[in-house]
């Protein structure tokens, strides 16, 4: 039995091969250290902080809790693949405009979580927004500006309809 794993992952629409990895490697580790996608941040490595949030088959999950080699049949989208444009997404632009970014470490996870929320529920209530970002810890903003950025995105999407 080989101790080293060779497999392919579907990340941001591309098939990426993972060479010679250890069986226990998390998706977070593989994305950052093997596939050159450092946008997904790692902090707690126990699913508490949400900074490693990615989309897996359309669901927001913590990449640190996904065993990478078990994700071979899933479509993974990281913050790098949240848009194919070179421009920022409307969510990212709102984060900038509302000052929802301070140290920036939690930002990629929050951006993915907010895209996931608005994709499923375009008109979330205040409670639904709070619940949707409850798994993303931010120690700088106090969440007020993050919350304002989500609301600004919703307003601008409604206005452009």
């Amino acid at each position: 039995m080989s101790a080293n794993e060779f497999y392919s992952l579907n990340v941001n629409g591309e098939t990426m091969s993972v060479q010679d990895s250890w069986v226990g490697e998390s998706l977070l580790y593989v994305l950052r250290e093997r596939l050159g996608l450092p946008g997904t941040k790692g902090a707690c490595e126990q699913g508490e902080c949400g900074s490693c949030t990615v989309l897996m088959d359309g669901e927001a999950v913590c990449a640190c809790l996904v065993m990478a080699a078990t994700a071979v049949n899933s479509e993974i989208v990281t913050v790098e693949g949240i848009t194919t444009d070179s421009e920022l997404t409307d969510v990212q632009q709102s984060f900038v405009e509302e000052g929802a970014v301070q140290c920036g470490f939690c930002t990629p996870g929050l951006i993915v979580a907010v895209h996931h929320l608005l994709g499923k529920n375009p008109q979330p209530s205040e409670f639904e927004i709070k619940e949707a970002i409850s798994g993303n810890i931010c120690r700088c903003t106090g969440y007020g500006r993050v919350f304002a950025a989500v609301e600004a995105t919703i307003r601008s999407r409604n206005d452009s309809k």
Partner: protein
Amino acid sequence: MSVIVAKELTTALTALREHGDARLIQGGTDLMVEINFNHVKPTTMISLRDIKSLRMIRTDTPGIMSIGSGVPYSVIEGEPVLTAIPALAQAARTVGSPQIRAAGSLGGNLGTCSPAGDTLPVMFALDASIHLSAIDSSRVVSIHDFMTGVKRSVRQHDEIITAIDFPIINGWQGYSKVGVRNAMVISVASACLVADHENADVRIALGSVGPTIIRCRAAESWLKTTLDLSTRSTISLDVANEFGRRAAEESSPIDDHRSTAQYRRHAISVLASRLLRKAYQ
């Protein structure tokens, strides 16, 4: 190959029988933490993530909702479970964060078998049954026999938990949990109460206050002899508080990094009393 990503249950069961060192992984919310912190060094992994039969909710047996062991909490917190087994949907919604609920499952709660497993008190209060399969056999075990201690169950190495059968109750059911905040919290104490109108009885199970989930059989039978529950009339604060006190007496909590035994016992008395009053509002 040291990671087997099974698409069929039989593939996983065959591999599990072959590899004595194999670990099963579904959502990974427990096991990956152990691996990330080097507490577990896996050699052979069998992933259940892609087995569709473990992700089904069945209602073909009358009076039973059978939930596949891999159905994520994010599904359990909504319909059809919300209407059929509201206490289970409530418990599912208290698990971790949206990210954790998209990955975690009942099979994981049972496989880990922690007394703080959020959905376990619901299984105990509803007398749920656990389906276990091996490559050449299968069995159904009552939840009361399944969990034997802290992180211990009767599951054998070559068995996979496939589904959990929940009886559909005609009555009221609710789940309450005490933790330091709403999101991302492991319970300090939890309780599930079921008021079964057909049998005119009340059942209550407690989480995080003993080595296993605790069914308060003495408090249940005290209530049944004290009150005629078939009238479904409201319950006085005195009776509810006495029920809470008796339920707390049956708990056996410990002091740990999350809370103290004394606080947990108090929390149980309050949860039990409130749940009972709510059931007969």
